[in-house]
């Protein structure tokens, strides 16, 4: 490299010579390497997670047969006698996720339609970043919001024809707040999909005598459908993986139910609750956390994978 430096110093006023590569652009190379490393961080982490999960999970299934994991109905891995039927926490997760979707599907879609089709450009420029800021609110804040605001609200105003009101800890309260929490994610991604529907389609529909509502619901939403579905799947993944809200508001009672009024435990809540400092590495309790973690990983990974495929397909349709 010393020789290149020399060329630089002795650069003659010869025009052809001035075109020669004068030195290696170390800055460029450095940036390239840094950027590649950045990209690798997430890939390596994913691989690392899988590796870290695999070995304790295998240990777990050597101690607890896989059929017992999936075909018994009681989840009490930390009690004596320990029970390892995983369904209560899986169903608990989907219980909360279901109620989250009951809130997030209509609100997220409504917000997306409003921003994309009804809001003026000025309103949109304010609302969209605001929604995206909401994504950054710490989830523990949502947890306390559920516990101290939504739960009392539900308990005090529970219509009697719906039966027993929810308890202090309930799947419904946690689910509703999770739903509110993922509205920004869902709305923002769905809005992106709807916004990228070409204007020529809207014009075509208007020219056929459509009203604004018909343009939105019969042209824009169907055209953006795969993007909208992807938005929901990503929202579901967030809800499934969320820990703080369910830990605080849904209780911690493994419970094979889809009722919103009961206390339940989710997979994440189980993990967070069990992974305390005094847990011994290599114990069955320890391995259980990893087995549940693996299952959670597989569930969210599968959903994200399909969401990504759907998103890719809808991109191809319009680019």
């Amino acid at each position, binding site marked *: 490299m010393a020789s290149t430096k020399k060329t630089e110093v002795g650069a003659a006023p010869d025009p052809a010579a001035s075109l020669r590569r004068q030195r290696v652009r170390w800055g460029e190379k450095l940036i390239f390497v840094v950027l590649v490393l950045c990209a690798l961080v997430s890939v390596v982490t994913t691989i690392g997670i899988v590796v870290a999960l695999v070995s304790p999970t295998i240990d777990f299934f050597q101690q607890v047969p896989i059929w017992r994991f999936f075909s018994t109905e009681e989840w009490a891995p930390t009690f004596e006698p320990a029970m390892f039927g995983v369904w209560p926490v899986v169903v608990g997760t989907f219980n909360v996720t279901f109620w989250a979707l009951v809130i997030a599907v209509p609100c997220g879609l409504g917000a997306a339609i409003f921003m994309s089709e009804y809001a003026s450009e000025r309103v949109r420029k304010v609302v969209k970043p605001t929604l995206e800021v909401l994504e950054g609110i710490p989830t523990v804040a949502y947890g306390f919001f559920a516990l101290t605001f939504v739960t009392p609200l539900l308990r005090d105003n529970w219509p009697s024809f719906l039966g027993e009101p929810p308890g202090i800890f309930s799947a419904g309260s946690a689910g509703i707040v999770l739903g509110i929490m993922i509205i920004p994610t869902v709305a923002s991604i769905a809005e992106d999909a709807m916004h990228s529907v070409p204007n020529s389609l809207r014009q075509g*529909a208007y020219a056929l005598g459509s009203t604004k509502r018909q343009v939105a619901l019969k042209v824009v939403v169907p055209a953006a459908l795969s993007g909208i579905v992807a938005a929901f799947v990503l929202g579901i993944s967030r809800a499934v993986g969320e820990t703080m809200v369910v830990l605080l508001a849904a209780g911690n009672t493994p419970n094979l139910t889809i009722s919103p009024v009961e206390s339940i435990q989710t997979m994440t809540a189980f993990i967070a609750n069990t992974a305390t400092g005094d847990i011994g590495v290599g114990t069955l309790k320890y391995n259980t956390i990893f087995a549940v973690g693996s299952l959670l990983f597989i569930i969210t990974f599968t959903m994200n994978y399909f969401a990504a495929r759907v998103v890719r397909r809808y991109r191809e*349709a319009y680019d």
Partner: protein
Amino acid sequence: MDEQPDKTSTADPAAEPAVAPPPAPAPEPVAAPGPGAPSAEVLKAEQLSVYYGPKLAVQGVDMTIPTNNIVALIGPSGCGKSTILRCYNRMNDLVKTARIEGKVLYHGADLYSSHVDPVEVRKHIGMVFQQPNPFPKSIYDNIAFGPRVLRMKVDMDEVVERCLHQAALWDEVKDRLKQSALGLSGGQQQRLCIARALATSPDVLLMDEPCSALDPVATARIEDLMQELRKLYTIVIVTHNMQQAIRVADRTAFFTVEVPSDGDRYGVLAEFGDTDQVFNNPIDERTKRYVSGEFG
């Protein structure tokens, strides 16, 4: 590229009941320009000026469009052809800043009167755009879209078949009606868009450079098609192609740009007359220069 079967099947001007293609009659479009009630002047602009925000785009257009005619709007780009065309079905309402002065009459009724619903206007006056813009739905659903949003009580299969016949597309797509319209070629897509516009039984078709994205073969098909359609509909077409205007139009409107010394340029209607006269015997100096190719 044999147009013959389409031509004979699409319409026969001599015998009205036989107008329709095989399946069933096409009552509405035939009835519209019939003798009596509807005027011979379908559309009429009176001192029509259009502004975008404070900026004048086109000034003082007087133009009458007779029934069952093809009227071509020609002129250099930016002279306001699309702007004027979009006044006829109030598509300019979709541009927030757009504003008009003057009048646009449809069978004598003011389209911009306060109790006219622009959505209703577009039921009667269809539009075909420069770029084919089929919906990402099946061929069938594309054509059924208009009748469905308008809740027209029609036999949908019959409408789809009739419109595809009228747009000379039936033979090419009859076996793939349920497939996506996005799989059609550009020329087929544009004919699908024409068929789609016909499905709501309008009596005017506005076309904004419908062939500019198409190759010459597809263009020739659309031009043939227009000749068939003019028996049933009134057509206003914007084109940048003077040869096309000569080939298809009964009457031609030539727009040009005024460049006042002290302000912004705006479009005006320089000449409007029979196509033959406008191209061979123009009265206006600017038209003369433009049609002879001297215009800058």
